[in-house]
């Protein structure tokens, strides 16, 4: 082992990043130390600051610096529509590209009994309390289209009905610009069953 001590430690630490194996970690470490020490210091400080100050929004549980995230703190957002997503990354994706003006709730996971994740582990009681206030009229279920995502959507739709809220599920099927010939069978079947009048 050529690398030892702090260098080895740095390489090991860089491997926490997704997609970074031993080889890339080593390249990154050498790059930072040989060519960009200032950048390395900046990176270290930014990481520390972020870990220290970024937490979860008290309302929707997305990542935020303050008590509330920008969406929850904005009084102009429509509180009658609540969009449910699995992770904070999806809040950004939907917010940037859909023109949705309602509010969000982030599950930070999905119901998955075989992983031991049930309603209690996802803290769905927080969502129940939100529905109890009576402000929400429509719950938009934007969980992933995996079996667990579907199960989660169904569970939440039953919860919504229990509280007199209208549950809706995002549509899925042939991707935009996609060619039907190349779409997989399951997706195509869904697209076909979910057809609508034009």
């Amino acid at each position: 082992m050529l690398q030892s001590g702090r260098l080895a430690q740095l390489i090991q630490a860089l491997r926490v990043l997704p997609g970074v194996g031993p080889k890339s970690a080593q390249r990154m470490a050498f790059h930072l130390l040989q060519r960009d020490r200032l950048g390395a210091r900046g990176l270290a400080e930014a990481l520390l600051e972020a870990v220290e100050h970024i937490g979860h929004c008290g309302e929707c549980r997305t990542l935020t610096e303050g008590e509330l995230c920008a969406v929850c703190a904005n009084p102009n957002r429509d509180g009658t529509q609540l969009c449910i997503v699995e992770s904070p990354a999806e809040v950004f994706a939907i917010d940037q590209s859909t023109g949705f003006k309602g509010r969000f709730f982030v599950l930070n996971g999905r119901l998955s009994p075989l992983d031991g994740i049930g309603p209690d582990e996802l803290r769905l009681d927080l969502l129940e309390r939100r529905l109890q206030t009576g402000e929400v009229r429509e719950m938009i279920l934007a969980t992933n289209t995996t079996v667990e995502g579907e199960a989660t959507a169904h569970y939440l739709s039953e919860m919504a009905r229990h509280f007199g809220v209208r549950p809706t599920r995002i549509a899925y099927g042939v991707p935009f610009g996609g060619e039907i010939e190349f779409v997989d069978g399951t997706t195509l079947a869904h697209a076909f069953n979910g057809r609508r009048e034009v």
Partner: protein
Amino acid sequence: MMQPDRYSLKEAFVLHRRNFRETSLLLDIFSRDHGIFRLIAKGALRGRGGRSGVLQPFLPLSLAWTSRGEPAVLTAAEARGNIFELSGKNLFCGFYLNELLVRLLPPHDPHERIFACYGQSLQRLQTGGRLDETLRFFELALLEELGYGLLLDYDAESGAEIQAERYYAYGIEQGPVECGAGGSAVRGSVLLGLRNGFLTGHEEILAAKRLMRRVIQHYLGGRPLKSRDLFKYSTYSVFNIE
């Protein structure tokens, strides 16, 4: 170096999948000839060439893999038919079956009968048969296969045939013994109904559910099944015994 064992296309289902490292999947597999085991699908999540789309629960598959210790590594996967389209409560029931298999079957033990029964149960869940009967039928078959089969035709003490209108106390690993009505006593009609795979009437369905839950809980040990929690808001729950 030890040569890996190679297995050519075998009938199997994915019971559960979780992401593993960056682009791989760790799968709980139930195969006809090799029972329950774990399999790594390397690069399954990588773009278009990945096998992620086909490695779905409730889809009949043919899988090939090599094994040199645990876990085995997937080498080929193709769909063997159409996916069982389960939605809503039926999907929850599908999870329940999967959880039962993972929790109760010992790994690497072939159980062809249960494999066939699993496929039939998924079929029944898809076509929307009565959920209770489907689940009880599967639970009984699973226990039977594991050697924990329930005694449903004779009184364990007297050896007399079970009478529909009499009451019995069901002792786990002993069987039914006639007793008075009340408490946890089960009507004979419930035992006979379970034996014949045909339950009628709300009371009987409920009693059968209670009995089976008690027996299954016994074999699971302390940890309860997670998939039951999914039914909290279901107006009619196949797991609600209160």
